[in-house]
C-alpha cells in the first residue's frame, strides 16, 4: 500500500489560516489501511481543527467527506456538485489522490493534510516498512524476492558494501542489511549462483528518472 504520516497540526492550521469554510477529504484506499487518511481520521482531524479555530476566536466550517478512492475519476466526480461551495479542500489521501483532486477541481485550492511516504507493508500493528520503489524493471526473481533498490541504502546491485555488520546496515541500527537478507534467502533457496554474476547497469529510465510515467493498456481503452 501507499503509506503516509499526518502533517503536524500547526502546519495544517497555518495552511488553512486564510479560509473559513473548507472540505476535509479522506480516502477509503491505502491511507485507510495505514490509518492516516480514512473516514475516522477525517472526523478526528476536522474536530481538532474546529476546536483549534474556535479557541483562536475565528470559527471554521468544515464539511467531512470520504471518497472510495481519490485516485479514480468515478469517485472524484462525486465531489463536483459541492466543491465550489467551499473555499478549499484539505485532502488526507496520498499525493496522487491530492493531485487528482487538484487537477479535477481547478478553481479550488487543494491542501495536503499528510506527508505521503512509501510503497510498503504492515510489518505489525502500527508499523509499516518500505518494500518497493516502483522503479519499473523488477529483478526480484534474481534476488530471492528481496529488492536491492529498496532494501539496500545504496541501492547496490552487487552488495553488500563494507558497512554490513551482523545483518545490520551502517545507516541505522534499526535497519536490516538488504543484501544480508538477499544472501540468506539465496542460500536457503540454493540459488547462490545468482550472486556471482555481474548484472547489467540498471535502466533508470523505467523509474522516475525517465520523467513522469504512464501505463497505457490498449486492450482496456
Amino acid at each position, binding site marked *: 500500500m501507499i503509506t503516509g504520516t499526518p502533517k503536524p497540526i500547526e502546519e495544517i492550521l497555518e495552511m488553512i489560516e486564510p479560509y473559513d469554510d473548507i472540505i476535509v477529504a479522506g480516502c477509503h484506499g491505502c491511507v485507510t489501511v495505514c490509518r492516516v487518511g480514512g473516514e475516522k481520521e477525517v472526523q478526528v482531524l476536522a474536530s481538532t481543527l474546529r476546536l483549534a479555530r474556535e479557541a483562536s476566536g475565528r470559527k471554521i466550517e468544515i464539511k467531512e467527506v470520504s471518497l472510495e478512492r481519490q485516485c479514480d475519476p468515478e469517485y472524484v466526480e462525486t465531489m463536483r456538485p459541492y466543491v465550489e461551495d467551499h473555499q478549499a479542500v484539505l485532502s488526507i489521501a496520498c499525493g496522487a489522490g491530492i493531485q487528482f483532486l487538484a487537477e479535477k477541481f481547478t478553481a479550488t485550492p487543494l491542501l495536503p493534510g499528510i506527508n505521503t511516504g512509501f510503497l510498503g507493508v504492515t510489518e505489525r500493528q502500527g508499523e509499516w516498512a518500505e518494500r518497493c520503489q516502483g522503479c519499473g524493471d523488477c529483478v526480484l526473481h534474481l534476488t530471492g524476492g528481496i529488492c536491492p533498490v529498496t532494501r539496500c*541504502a*545504496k*541501492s*547496490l*546491485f*552487487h*552488495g*553488500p*558494501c*563494507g*558497512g*554490513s*555488520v*551482523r*545483518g545490520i546496515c*551502517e*545507516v*541505522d541500527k534499526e535497519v536490516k*542489511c538488504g543484501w*544480508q537478507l538477499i*544472501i*540468506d534467502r539465496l542460500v536457503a533457496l540454493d540459488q547462490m549462483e545468482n*550472486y*556471482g554474476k*555481474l*548484472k547489467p*547497469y*540498471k535502466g*533508470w529510465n523505467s523509474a522516475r528518472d525517465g520523467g513522469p510515467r504512464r501505463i497505457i493498456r490498449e486492450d482496456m481503452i
Partner: protein
Amino acid sequence: MKVESNLKRVLDAGHFSVTAECGPPRGADPDVVRKKAAYVKDNVDACNVTDNQTSVVRMSSLAGCLLIKELGIDPLIQMVVRDRNRIALQSDLLGASALGVRNLLCLSGDHQKFGDDPQAKNVFDIDSMQLIHLAKTMRDEGVFPSGDKLQGAPDFYIGCAVNPFADPFEIRVPRLKLKMEAGADFVQTQCIYNMEKFKTYMEGAKQQGLHEKIKILAGVTPLKSAGMAKFMRRMVAGMDIPDEVVNRIADEPKEKQAAKGIEMCIEQIQELKEMEGIAGIHVMAIEWEEKLNEIIGGAGLLPRPVID
C-alpha cells in the same frame, strides 16, 4: 595498451608494492596537499587521493591527484558512485586520464548520512562493481558503454577495495572474484587488524587462484593510541580490531602508545610481506602522513624501486 602507471610497473616487475593515501583538505588550500605529499614522496609507488571520504566535503580527488603529481608522485584517483551518475563518472574518467592520472580505485562511497550534508540526494546510478566494468570497457574496447567510439581511450590501472571483515563473511571471497572478473587489476583491502581472520580470507582467495589474477594490496593503519583503536572499533562499520590488539597498545603508558602503534604496524607489514598472495601494502596513516617514512622504512621497504 600503453599504461604508464608506476604502481603497475612495480607490481609487474615482481616487487612488493607500497601505496599510501592523502586525504584532501576541507578547503581550497593546495599547500595542505603539498605538505602531506612531501611526507609521501619517495616512500610509495602510488598515492591514493580520497574522494569525499565519510561523505565529508573536501577538495576533489582529481584536483588532489594533480597536486601530488606535480610533486612527482604517481597519483591514484579514488572515485565513488555516491555523488555522480554514469554520465559524470565517464566524463571524470576521461578527464583524469587526459591529465595523466593512471591509477583508479572504484568505490561505492560511504553513505551521505555520515557526512556534513546528510540531507543530500544520493546517486548510486551504477555500483562500484559496475564502475570497474565501465572503466575496463572504456580502456580495453575504446568505447562508451553506449557503444559509441571514444576519441582516445582512458588509460587506467583499475583497482577496487574489499573489506574482508564485513558480513556475511562467506561472500567476501566470491565478491573479490566478482570484482576481478568485472575488470579489477588490483585490490586494496580495508585496514587489517584481525590477522587470523584475514588469513582465512586469503586461504579462500588462494583456493580460487584469485591471488594470481588480481594484485592484492593489504591495508594497514597505524594506531596512534588505545583510544583511537576503541573509537574505530565502535564507530567504523566493518572494522574488526581484536581485543589483543587493543590491549597491546592500551598496556603502554599514554606517551608511549604512538610509538607502540608504529611498532605494531611495522610488525604487521613484515608478516603480511611473507604471506603468499600478498602483492603489496596500502598504508592508511590517517592524518599521520609524517610517520610514513618511519613505518615503511622500518618494514624494510625503502628505497622504492625505480622502473624505467
